[in-house]
């Protein structure tokens, strides 16, 4: 199977993405699956196609999550392109609108944006399409992800599940969102939810049996009621260090991302990870350039640089995220590349749904519902 073969991805779901990639490879990780069907020999390409380092100058400003970059990525890039640099400004964004407003603000040259964010920014004509001939290393990224994220360089994906400490919930076993919702009042003040509109409401959609991309007002009203119903018993909505309290026991249960839990389990093995029976919501994100940025040459050079397996492995090893570049697998820490939390099986992929851009009315409905949830 050729990875460069275009795959129709409508609707965009992780299951659809990876099930196709993983056909006939039951039990293997997504990365392994993608590696198996990936383009061999692509990992060595590292030149910024057609661009000499001398022509690439200036500083591009990147809006990104705190710490969401390889330890050495920026320094190595500046070393390779002496006249160019990336200034990273950290933002812990909480909503699609927030990211789109950042696209519109012209304060940044490129941003980390998930499929919802980039899709809406694209619909609002707020992005610059990359000249892929200047980013030849993009071929290292599995085609499925490139198709699913056409606005820029896809960098990572993740699932939203449940992390908990059995020893702090009376030895209870959690296997579903229903279990979590039932235990929240019982262990009042010991549960943390993600402070991110799509992930928090998307997971609640799964709890209620809805698509995590629903735009039905009735569905979203039930989602609102379900979250507001347990809100008095929640410890907090957090968008950074969501599960940090699980390590010292100040938090017993958390709606959390897989990469976060994988890192936390290294600090405290008592933390359990659950992919709930009802299904999981997932995201795919990447770096996308802002409309009319004057630093497009620097951005393209950087994205090409980041798509080198060595640099991408640094990114993955630092962030601990699930990765989407098969060629980088040998360079990724085994604690990540062989971690069952990060490496989904076919069964897991079958119940995983990726977020997608919901259109203007859908985005407005989600945004208003989220505001109402936070204000309640």
């Amino acid at each position, binding site marked *: 199977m050729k990875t460069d073969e275009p795959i129709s991805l409508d609707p965009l779901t992780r299951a659809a993405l990876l099930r196709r990639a993983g056909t006939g490879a039951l039990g293997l990780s997504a990365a392994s699956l993608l590696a198996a069907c990936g383009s061999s020999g692509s990992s060595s390409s590292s030149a910024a196609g057609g661009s000499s380092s001398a022509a690439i100058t200036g500083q591009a400003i990147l809006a990104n999550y705190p710490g969401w970059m390889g330890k050495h990525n920026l320094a190595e890039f500046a070393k390779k392109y002496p006249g160019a640099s990336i200034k990273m400004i950290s933002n812990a964004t909480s909503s699609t609108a927030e990211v789109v407003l950042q696209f*519109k603000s012209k304060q940044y040259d490129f941003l980390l944006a998930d499929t919802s964010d980039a899709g809406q920014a694209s619909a609002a004509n707020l992005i610059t399409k990359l000249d892929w001939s200047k980013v030849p290393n993009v071929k290292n990224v599995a085609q499925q992800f490139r198709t699913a994220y056409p606005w820029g360089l896809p960098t990572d994906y993740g699932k939203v599940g449940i992390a908990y400490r059995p020893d702090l919930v009376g030895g209870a076993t959690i296997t579903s969102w229903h279990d979590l919702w039932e235990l929240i009042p019982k262990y009042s003040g010991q549960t943390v939810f993600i402070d991110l509109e799509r992930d928090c409401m998307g997971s609640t959609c799964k709890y209620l049996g809805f698509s995590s991309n629903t735009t039905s007002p009735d569905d979203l009203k039930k989602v609102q009621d379900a979250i507001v119903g347990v809100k008095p018993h929640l410890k907090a909505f957090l968008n950074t260090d969501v599960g940090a309290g699980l390590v010292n026991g100040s938090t017993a249960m958390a709606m959390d991302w897989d990469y976060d839990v994988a890192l936390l389990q290294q600090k405290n093995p008592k933390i359990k990870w659950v992919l709930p029976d009802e299904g999981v919501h997932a995201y795919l994100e990447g770096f996308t350039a802002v409309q009319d940025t004057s630093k497009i040459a620097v951005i393209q050079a950087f994205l090409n640089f980041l798509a080198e397996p060595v640099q991408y492995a640094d990114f993955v090893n630092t962030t601990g995220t699930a990765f989407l570049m098969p060629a980088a697998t040998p360079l990724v820490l085994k604690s990540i590349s062989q971690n069952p939390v990060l490496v989904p099986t076919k069964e897991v992929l079958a119940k995983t749904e990726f977020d997608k851009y919901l259109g203007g009315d859908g*985005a407005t409905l989600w945004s208003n519902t989220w505001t109402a949830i*936070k204000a309640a």
Partner: protein
Amino acid sequence: MVEHVDRDQGGVAIEHPAAPSPRAPGWRRLDSGRWGRLALLAPTLLITTVCFVVPLGLIALYSFGSVNQVDFNVFFGWTTGNYRAFTSNLYLHTLARSVVLSISTTLACAVIGFTFAYFISRQSPKAQRLLLVAVIVPFWTSFIVRTYSWVDLLQNLGPIDRFARALGLHGHIDLLYTQYSIGIGILYSYLPLMILPIYVSLERIDPALFDAAEDLGATPWRQFRRVVLPLAVPGLIAGIIIVGVPALGEYVIPQILGGGKTLMAGNILADQFLQTGNYPFGSALAVSIMVVLMVLLFLLRRAQPAADAQ
């Protein structure tokens, strides 16, 4: 020219320089110099207009608009829908929560601030200077850093919780991400702003008044109630305004110490601009909060003359 002569107790004539008569030519020149006076006023007028009148006008204008929530362009269709949305129970409940929280923390600030200011005012001048520096020192550190430090202090298994456990207190003292943690954060951050104006009022009290009150048989408590308290009221009201007004619109402290779930009106307002991009609704919220504040300030202004009269 000598307009008049005073005689002091020793009978020595003191000559005052003549005050310019309104009819004097020099005064007339000034009086006619309207452009000159306007020129003197111009910087203030310019700053007030550019920094206050225009932004407030824009906010009022935006509050009647609507937004396309795909590209976040604002359209001015002169709708009152944003104000109608604000009157839903959801937002009124949040506003009520903000008012209660800001009033309670302001009162706590007043009680603690008055106590501390009174204590400072009764010390020697050297001790007063030291204590005032101690009040001001926290301002040398970033407000954000100081607020984040409370996260570590208040969290479950944090120093306060561990101290309580060491004392044998059962259960967790888990204050973080509650309304109490927001209250503590506001109290801590705004306390100096309450102490300083009260101290200024107390420091101005003539010590002879205490002697007089004592000579007239007033007990210490009666001295405090009949002399100290009335004379401190102007400083107290100033402190309440300085603390209460920003506390009602506080955004950062609830954001950091509220855990994203105990939102005050300031958070919802900020979210409209920063997270949901609904500038018109955010503007309607801002105007509504301003109206609430103006009513509260009006009530305080009415209380001020009564306090002054005492």
